[in-house]
């Protein structure tokens, strides 16, 4: 079957099997920035925004996204046009192996979009679905704090 959706501001029509997850369909079609760490909805590496809501794409059936809007980490910012949060993540050492980073960025972006000045406990709650083994989370939490303060200072939204 075919489905149509909008991904990173582009309309796409993709062929898929009805039992395939959104993660599989995205990765099979070149959106490999969405990572698979467990395929069980427990690590957050495959996090994408689905109609502005952060979801583990391995837990979403692809056929359910008909006419919906998806944003991956590349929709938040690219190598040549990175988002502020991405720049701060890289500058803070919040990325080591980088495998969790796409999901972490999506989670952080989603958190800061809804709440530009989260408390520490709100940050921890916001990142609780995303596993990282390299950093011990310390520099990731620091990057979210820094992003928040820069956003507030510049009086802008996480866009």
């Amino acid at each position, binding site marked *: 079957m075919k489905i149509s959706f909008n991904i990173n501001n582009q309309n796409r029509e993709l062929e898929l099997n009805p039992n395939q997850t959104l993660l599989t369909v995205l990765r099979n079609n070149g959106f490999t920035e969405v990572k698979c760490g467990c395929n*069980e909805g427990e690590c957050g590496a495959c996090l994408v925004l689905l109609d502005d809501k952060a979801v583990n794409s391995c837990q979403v059936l692809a056929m359910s996204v008909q006419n919906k809007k998806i944003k991956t980490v590349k929709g938040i910012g690219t190598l040549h046009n990175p988002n502020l949060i991405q720049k701060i993540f890289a*500058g803070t050492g919040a990325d*080591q192996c980088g*495998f969790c980073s796409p999901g972490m960025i999506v989670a952080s972006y989603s958190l800061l979009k809804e709440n530009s000045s989260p408390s520490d406990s709100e940050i921890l709650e916001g990142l609780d*679905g995303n596993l990282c083994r390299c950093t011990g989370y310390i520099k990731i939490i620091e990057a979210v704090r820094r992003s928040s303060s820069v956003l507030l200072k510049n009086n802008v939204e996480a866009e």
Partner: protein
Amino acid sequence: MFKYIKKPIEKIDGLALVTGNEKYTDDFYFENMLHISILHSGYAHAKIEDIDDSTALRMPGVVDVLSYKNVKQILYTTAGQGYPEPSPYDTVLFGNVMRFVGDNVCAVAAETKEIADSALKKIKVKYKRLKPILHFEESENSKIIIHKDDGAFPKIPVYYDASKNLAAKVEAEVGNFEEAFQNSENKIEQTFFTQYASHCALEPHAAVSYIDTRGRLVIISTTQVPFHVRRIVSHIAEIPISKIRVIKPRIGGGFGGKQEVLLEPIVALVTWKTKRPAKLVYSRKEVFKSSRTRHEYRTIFKVGFQKDGKINAMHLDALENSGAYGSHALTVLSNAGSKTLPLLNKIENLKFTGKGVYTNLPCGGAYRGYGATEAYFGFGQVVDMVCEASGNDIIEYYKKWAIKSGETSPIFKALGEGKEGVAMTVTSTSLNECLEVGARESGWYEKKKLYGVNSTLNKNNRYKRGIGMADLMQGSAIPEIDMASAYIKMNDDGSFNLNVGATDLGTGSDTILAQIASEVLDTPVDKFIVTSSDTDFTPFDTGAYASSTTYLSGQAVLKCAKQIKEQILKVGAEMLGVSLDEVDILDSNVVVKPSSNNENKGEVSYQDICSYSFYQNNQFQIQAAVSHVSPKSPPPFAVHFVEIEVDTFTGIIKVLNYVATVDCGTPINTTLAEGQAEGAIVNGISYALFENYYFSNHGKMLNDTFGKYGMYTAADIPPIKVHLIDSYEETGPFGAKSISEININGALPAIANAFYNATGKRLYKAPFSPEYVLKILKSNP
């Protein structure tokens, strides 16, 4: 003093990582690619009498099935170590004896992953079940022989006895332990246990292969050891090394788990046979069950000491559960002794005995800490016990008895890795300062007064607080065994290619190595195009393990960059018309030294120098290739302090604060060094309190998902502060030693010591689960 060293320089791949632009192994898709799925044994011990794959092979889309029936039975070790490996050759890719739940039965290659997965269900395997060994303490004397008549053998001349289920045995003694122990006024004899753990690198193991335009096999793999992969695949698949290229793309974390050659031979065989690209990616469950783990350990410490606390004799006896195969069995075992016993180097009578035994449980392997984690749990506690018994302040005790600059330990020579070790003198340490700063920053002395079993704060209180510490050392590379090399060439805009076999697996070593070259050549880090690692294009490096990359590969880069500098200076002097001793480099230029009497005070840029060397006169490529082997393995040191609160009703231990002081020599990149320490500490706490493998009565791992396994999430972490306290190691690049492993070793002993401070009881078995803590609280002291 430094321009590019000891700076928080952003990772050169940082932006590419956080924008999802970098490619990992599973991100490579090829036309016409086959997908592979593995059938794993559901039995802990069984003989396969027959495999019927006929139904599976008839399924549309199924291309091939690999099993013992059509795969040559070639013995090897999955351990990616220097050759010949110190691990026994006891593994075949697909054999007919299953030795643990998760062992390889067969592989299906199909047009899609879905077809491969469904074909697995159509394969009929006739097993003859054998009795398994599921408790490692029973292995040596068991009638069940796990590697029986399979030809398993040691590749190097070391003790190995499959008939006793012994994968490894190590013994070393300095002085006369038994006599000194018997003559000691005070004695401690205590047994400790540490548990299985998974590395939990977020990226699962994966390998992709294809045939290139000239018929060679190319393997892209999640490996820490690309050159070992090439050699081992050549051995198993019987393809010449010259026909194999191994590429390491970005790696999503390793921690030792990717120092194993598990998937590469399988994709290699499929591609070599079918001439089609092939991909194999482990599921998370497969990573937990079928890849490698931290070994389960029992350590028995015997310590004889005087009334004043002086230790006369120490014996560490280690029993290692090697699991079904002996990957890293010998070397992890040796490290349990060699990374702990030298710390208190003034003990005159030291003994280490260790055995690695086979069981029908998942295989151990390399895991950050590598034996030291397992042994420091007991070591850190027995030192605390000696101090408690003798009335010594443990900070002052370590200051007095720990190894110092200019000192050695006979253990360095007595305990090597499959052969005699290398004698060495410690020449860099800031351990005393680490102890002092850590005590100050953690509020050690104030809290020692405030807490304690009988303190007003703790007595009759449900919540009891305590503080504990642990002193640690590790190594930096394997001396006279590990080798690293680097290649640098100059480009005509003044940039450089830096090609290294060193394997950045997320550690940031590409950046660190570029910083080292930057410092030598006085040119910015972004002038270096770093390639790591590709067996066709980068020179040999043993790989990213044994805390070696910064120290060993870094020194290779330093030496290589110095040769480049000489060449640049020579061309620069020629261009400026002055003699070589009149020039120096400055900020990407060759300049006439201010001290020179030469009137020509000109300068030439790196860009002009390279352009000149390409096109103008005496043309040549400015380039150098250099190798490096280290004569020693200088230990980094660390001191960890932890404050905890024990809920005596629930048995839950809450970590309130964690302070670590770390001597890694010169931290080349301060942010990355802190990141290494922080990640290791959190992994260490998570291991001490939660992580474990729970098995069914038949040896099946029960908690094989992230959710059930329970590694720490962001919401779990306590306040953690890392202080880097430099020393200067002359044999390392700009004074650097290692930092990657050491900090995983502190949480177990430090938390256990804090628990003693809070409750007066000791924890002998990890993890410190609420059930175990309650049991200990109810026990007699």
